[in-house]
């Protein structure tokens, strides 16, 4: 599904990712953990195609296609989704209209017909309900006046509606209380169907208590320095990121 090879990404004059390797197969859920400033969000933005995130070396292949050659909207239509750490407010554009425009734009790019509005609303409502979000939110402007938790849950609603092949979740757990965290985890688990893949970027282990990651990676200074199973996340939680230094010294 996703094959990242020796990825180097520069923002301005500063190299943030310094040779990152990562491979995610269909249906897999991988977690990337790491301290602040290790390059976690940069990876998310580089995958989604943000301006100013320059790939200077290496490659990102998504289902065999070179992501670096694609515009952000082409990546979306191909099935890549990024849940933002800080979802952006879009004043004056209501959620329902935004979601339908986005879905139809993707479908159009894939040569599919526009979504039937009844089916669309059904999907959105079901998703809102499972995330315990008020339906009135559909008529509100995208993320405007939403609480931090609502914004994060709204990202999961978008994911559920857009049905990506690979969802990259950038610290979707940060700023959530335990109830909201569980709902978000349920939202992710509900989308796991053996085909769809996930890359969960997180600072803490607690979200992983509710997900079942196939692999856990530790990102430090722009590189994956350690990979393992769930036990790696538990070790990080217990020992903190300090052990990374020991590993690199050893």
């Amino acid at each position, binding site marked *: 599904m996703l094959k990242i090879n020796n990825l180097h990404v520069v923002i301005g004059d500063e190299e943030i990712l310094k040779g990152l390797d990562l491979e995610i197969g269909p249906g897999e859920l991988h977690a990337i953990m790491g301290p602040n400033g290790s390059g976690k969000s940069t990876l998310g933005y580089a995958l989604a195609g943000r301006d100013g995130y320059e790939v200077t070396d290496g490659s990102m292949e998504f289902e065999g296609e070179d992501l670096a050659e694609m515009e952000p909207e082409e990546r979306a239509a191909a099935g890549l*989704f990024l849940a*933002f750490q800080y979802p*952006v407010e*879009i004043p004056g*554009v209501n959620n329902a209209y935004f979601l339908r*425009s986005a879905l139809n*734009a993707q479908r159009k790019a894939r040569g599919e017909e526009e979504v039937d509005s009844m089916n669309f609303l059904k999907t959105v409502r079901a998703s809102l309900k499972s995330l315990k979000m008020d339906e009135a939110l559909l008529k509100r402007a995208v993320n405007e006046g939403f609480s931090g938790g609502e914004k994060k849950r709204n990202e999961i609603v978008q994911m559920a509606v857009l049905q990506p092949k690979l969802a990259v979740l950038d610290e979707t757990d940060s700023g959530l209380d335990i109830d909201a965290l569980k709902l978000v985890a349920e939202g992710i688990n509900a989308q796991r169907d053996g085909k769809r893949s996930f890359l969960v970027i997180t600072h803490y282990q607690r979200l992983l208590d509710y997900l079942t990651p196939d692999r856990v990676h530790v990102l430090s200074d722009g590189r994956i320095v350690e990979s393992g199973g769930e036990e790696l996340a538990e070790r990080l939680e217990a020992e903190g990121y300090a052990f990374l230094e020991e590993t690199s010294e050893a």
Partner: protein
Amino acid sequence: MSALLEQLAPEAALAEDRYADIRRRAHQRLMQHGFPDLKTEAWKYTSLRLLEKRELGSGQGESAGAPEALPFAADVIHFDGGVLRNPPAELPTGVRLEPLDPAELVNVDYGDRAGAMAWLNLARFEQAWRLVIESTLERPLVLALTMPAGFATAVHPRLRIDVATGAEAVLIEQQHDEGAGLVNIVEDIELQRGARLRHVIHRRNAESIWVQRTRVSVSADADYRCHALELAGRLVRQDLAVHLLEQGANGEIDGVAFIDSGQHVDWHTAIDHEVGHTTSREAFRIMADGSGVGVFNGRIHIQRGADDSHSDLNTANLLLSDKARINIKPELEIYAEEVTASHGATIGQLEDSALFYLRTRGLPTEDAMALLKFGFAAAPLETAEPEVVRNWLIEELQAVL
């Protein structure tokens, strides 16, 4: 500018009817003051030199044909080519239309050269009408003013609108000019005690110079609300002054202007709290693309003794290109006690982060930009009532983005 004066208002051409003395007096005042230039504060950002370059013919313009159909039921009074050719055979119940009594015009005063275009109107108007809304109207009343593609003369429509005590109405000015002349409108609107008026201005012009002066007087407990969708033209100047004359009067202005290359739009609004216990609110947005130029001057004046008045003025503006220009000036003049008067003014550009966010959801850049522009520009229209009118305005906006 004297040549301009002779061209626009040749004294010899003044019609000899019951308004003749009024026109002569206005003509003299105009001769005395002349036209504004860029040193005239109220015209600092808007030049009338284009008027000098145009050789406007004289005489009544041609018919423009029927105004665009509206997607809701409404009564229409059509000022075809700027004049009322055929007074409507039937007006809705509660509406009266009659020639304005010359006595109403004897003492009007538009001051010095800043008011030159209003003096010009008074010196040259062909028709002056008085529209009376005597009781609550069941459906919107449309004043359609259309100018045809071949329009290259000057028209000076003049209208007085009275909304009687307790009457409620939705009045839509649907203005569509495809020509390249001068439309110079003066309108006075009076809301009697407890009257409620929703005043919608929907304007889309081509090459004409369009100058409109609207003065609104609001009596006790009356409520005036303006909803403007300005789709611009070569040169548009709108003055909108709302005078809150008695306690309980409320005045609100919500508007958006979308300006593109070769277009210049100047909105000068003034809300005057003449007595206390009056309220006002204004939200105006300009979006300028290409080489478009926008001007917004929003004045709030709370007079001495107008205690316990409350006012809020907000203007947000969006520059969509490097060449577009927007000049904004909120002016608060407060001479009373215990008032609240808040104001905010911003000029910005489309946010890259928002654009990127929309693109990651699959929207191509152009669609994403249109959605952001729409989100910005639709906000002032959200307050429009009734819903059919609001939806119409929003669709009209969407159509140009």
